[in-house]
């Protein structure tokens, strides 16, 4: 009978640990989801920004060699992501398709100029940098003008900034909430054992000796929680991939690795710090203060 009781109390203890592990895992899952959101928002804003660009309109009599040299120079600069040469003929063809009218026949000649379409890296796709880059390109004598929609760059940048700001505040708040939830969970686990901590001190154990096992056990729980979180996050990523293949998350393994590493660091870090603080708190209390 006593063996049964023994088993029962062990099982009760284990189920309370199980609850702790699951609660921590759920909160870490929320942290992971936020990370996923932030990382993809970054990717999305990059994608949008790198689609903004400008056309470098060239003189109509430009020589092939000069054009190629100019394109090479642009490609070599640190701010250009891609360049594309658009010949007079191709420009005419594109415009024709857009207008649905054969304007060359109508005019009798091709009034369009050859150009180079330039796409910038996300870091340079803001109004200030674009203005500077424009000045630099205008120095080439074969360049007639640099054409871009100033307002479009402004609007895109403003909106991205605004959305990122809101997202950052939102995820920041959620992150702090998550940390305090994990901290509370751990403090409760330690609180439940506060009398044990006192007893251990009374029989001559040093603070470090009392703290050690608590921290080790907490870290073990954290690792279980993190494993559980990985399962949930993995499932989520596969689900998103199935629904929104255009995000192509699975192709960007570096980002996912960064996310999983982040969850690991946050999980271990907060559990370690919370446990240490919680145990220290009860190590410092007088036994008469333990009853509150």
């Amino acid at each position, binding site marked *: 009978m*006593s063996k049964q*009781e*023994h088993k029962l*109390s062990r099982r009760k*203890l284990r189920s309370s640990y199980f609850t702790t592990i699951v609660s921590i895992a759920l909160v870490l899952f929320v942290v992971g989801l936020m990370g996923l959101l932030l990382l993809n928002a970054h990717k999305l804003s990059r994608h949008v920004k790198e689609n903004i660009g400008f056309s470098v309109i060239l003189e109509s009599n430009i020589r092939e060699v000069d054009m190629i040299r100019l394109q090479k120079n642009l490609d070599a600069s640190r701010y250009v992501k891609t360049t594309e040469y658009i010949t007079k003929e191709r420009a005419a063809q594109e415009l024709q398709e857009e207008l649905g009218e054969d304007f060359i026949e109508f005019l009798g000649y091709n009034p369009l100029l050859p150009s180079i379409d330039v796409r910038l890296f996300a870091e340079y796709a803001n109004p200030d940098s674009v203005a500077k880059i424009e000045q630099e390109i205008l120095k080439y004598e074969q360049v007639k003008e640099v054409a871009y929609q100033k307002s479009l760059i402004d609007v895109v940048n403003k909106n991205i900034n605004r959305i990122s700001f809101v997202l950052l505040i939102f995820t920041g708040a959620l992150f702090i909430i998550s940390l305090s939830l994990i901290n509370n969970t751990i403090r409760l686990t330690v609180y439940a*054992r506060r*009398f*044990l901590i*006192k*007893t*251990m*001190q*009374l*029989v*001559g*154990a*040093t*603070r470090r*000796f*009392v703290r050690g096992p608590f921290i080790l056990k907490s870290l073990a729980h954290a690792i279980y929680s993190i494993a559980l979180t990985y399962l949930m996050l993995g499932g989520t990523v596969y689900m998103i991939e199935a629904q929104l293949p255009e995000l192509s998350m699975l192709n960007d393994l570096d980002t996912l690795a960064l996310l999983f590493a982040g969850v690991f660091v946050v999980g271990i870090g907060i559990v370690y710090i919370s446990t240490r603080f919680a145990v220290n708190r009860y190590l410092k209390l*007088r*036994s*008469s203060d333990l009853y509150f």
Partner: protein
Amino acid sequence: MHRKIMTDSKIIIRLKNATIAHPDNVVLTNIDFEVSRGEFVYLIGRTGSGKSSLLKTFYAELPLLRGEGTIAGYDLKKLKTRQVPYLRRNLGIVFQDFQLLTDRSVYENLLFVLKATGWKKKADMHKRITEVLEKVGLGYKEYKMPHELSGGEQQRVVIARALLNNPDLILADEPTGNLDPESSEGLLRLLLEISNNGQAVVFATHDYNLLNKFPARIVECKDSKLIEYNNQPAAMPNEDNPQASDEEIELL
């Protein structure tokens, strides 16, 4: 490190002009108190008279407010927080509410203390645990959980725990408070035997029957002072003494 200052090695507790206080009230003022090695001392007094506070001062759970105090070679006035565990290793403490680690077996309770106090070899630890459990008559219960034992048995585990490191001094804070009369007597016989082996015992109690049955030095906490009855049976409070009946009313 945790070296103690050596004084007169025959005296294990020495308080001089000591004032003992909780943060908000003074319990004992200007008391002098000495206990020698191997001595058995009853500490009596009403609840709230300061018995527990005095014992707490001995094991550094309560700081000494004023005066001088030396316990097992440690100067209470100069004691630093990190030295407290080392002082406690020279003491064995027995509590009314046992204070066993309820999440582990009797054996693991004792093992924890040995590991906490620097024992390393498994075989030595096993031997020592078996020895102390034999001594308190619980050799066959080592794999029980504390809650599976009776109150008397749990208290004997606590005494076994107190004996593990062969302390010079055993502090017992109303250890019989939760026990029936037979278990109480058994416990007291055990502690007397321990004191006969050279370990000092300070035994705080409410149980005046024990005082009569097993006479020894008696010290009473009363009106913020300590009163010595120095083994004089006539002066001892007993059941006919009004003091004693007060105690009994309180116990009810």
